[in-house]
């Protein structure tokens, strides 16, 4: 049976992970490669590396990091941050990334999704959406890391992204992100009803039950978190056993 995926997300600046980490035994806690390997050994199903460096120089460092991650890791990983066009995608895929996520650039230039899907295949193209709820059931998409509101509405934008060739939707609820109060399950379930591509839940993970809820109530195919994993609040092996006990299919 197809398992539900647990994804850990790492923010990378100048080739180093920026958030804190609980892995005290790591020789180099800030090294994305070491951290990625540790997560992989613990049984995470997928990793996301987000480049939060803005500079051109930083982008080169990030590409080098992607190559090193690809040499070391034997599980799939997605990279994102600052992807402006198909050439950026080619550069990251050549370095060894399995998928590339796009966010603001797709909002400003939706045909970028078509271009990536046509040239590299839909399975490569993850469309990340940051949205904020303005009234019950009404969500507005934000660009530039949640700083700039757009005129796009979550459900229509997610559907358009799918029709243009997105392979997955990564939905982050800005209202839940960092709250540790659970994922935006109602919005996730509505998205799932409208989509025929995998849906990744992001934002709000606080405890293990939150993940079970994202799968059972939100109908998500995968759940992504950062802080609760990095700070050691939730350990991947325990989370997987917990989900299995609730009859949620997971890879053990």
């Amino acid at each position, binding site marked *: *049976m*197809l*398992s539900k*995926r647990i994804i850990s997300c790492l923010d990378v600046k100048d080739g180093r992970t920026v958030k804190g980490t609980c892995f005290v035994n790591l020789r180099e806690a800030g090294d994305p490669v070491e951290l990625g390997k540790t997560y*992989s050994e613990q049984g995470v*199903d997928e990793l996301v590396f987000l480049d939060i460096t803005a500079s051109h120089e930083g982008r080169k460092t990030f590409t080098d990091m992607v190559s090193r991650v*690809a*040499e*070391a890791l*034997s*599980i*799939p990983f997605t990279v994102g941050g600052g992807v402006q066009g198909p050439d950026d995608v080619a550069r990251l*895929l*050549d*370095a*060894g990334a*399995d998928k590339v996520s796009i966010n603001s650039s797709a909002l400003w230039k939706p045909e970028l999704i078509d271009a990536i899907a046509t040239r590299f*295949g*839909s*399975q490569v193209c993850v469309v990340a959406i940051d949205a904020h709820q303005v009234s019950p059931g009404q969500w507005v998409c934000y660009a530039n890391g949640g700083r700039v509101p757009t005129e796009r509405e979550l459900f229509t934008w997610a559907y358009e992204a799918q029709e243009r060739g997105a*392979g*997955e939707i990564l939905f982050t609820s800005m209202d839940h992100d960092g709250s540790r109060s659970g994922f935006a399950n109602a919005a996730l379930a509505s998205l799932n009803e409208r*989509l*025929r*591509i*995998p849906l990744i839940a992001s934002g709000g993970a606080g405890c293990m039950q939150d993940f079970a809820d994202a799968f059972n109530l939100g109908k998500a*195919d*995968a759940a992504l978190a950062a802080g609760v994993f990095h700070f050691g609040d939730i350990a991947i092996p325990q989370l997987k056993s917990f989900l299995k006990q609730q009859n949620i299919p997971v*890879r*053990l």
Partner: protein
Amino acid sequence: MSIAVINYNAGNTRSVLNALKRAGEQPVLTADPSVISSASGVILPGQGEASNVMQSLRDCKLVETILNLRQPVLGICIGLQLFCEYSEEGDTICMGMFPGTRVRHFHALSTLPSLKVPHMGWNSLHGLRSPLFQGMSEGTYVYFVHSFCAPPTQDTCATCEYGGVPFAAAMQRGNFYATQFHPEKSGCAGEQIIRNFISLCHD
């Protein structure tokens, strides 16, 4: 002799090369028929649309070379589909190492209209019967990304199920091995399969 990874502009060769290197091999990436023919083992990775990928192989004049190989050959993902007789994707006549097997789209086989395709993620293997799975247990999870699949036949050596559709997760006939999943992306299980294939090549 080293293992040759076929380079024909249609595959994620980087991941396969990395996986072989992690297992201690020094693979060669090549489209040279003589290098491929004399390698101790050959891997055909692949990504993309079947008729295009098949055309790339023809353009590189590699179809005959591959068909004539006597050493262990491993096809990955689209590689498995190209070893079948025919694929509905692009109405493609394939190489036919697995005769009678016709590759079909999940939506053509599943009764679930809302089935999400591609089948993407970790799914479990059953009915393992091949040296490729030496030391592995039933229900092992491996990583899949595909929209088309081969229904189980006599050449199937591992099955999987998605959307109520049983399909060939791996196939073998003689020296031709193939996996629909990506061993190079399947964590520890994948590493075991790669090591098993390497052992077959160095037998």
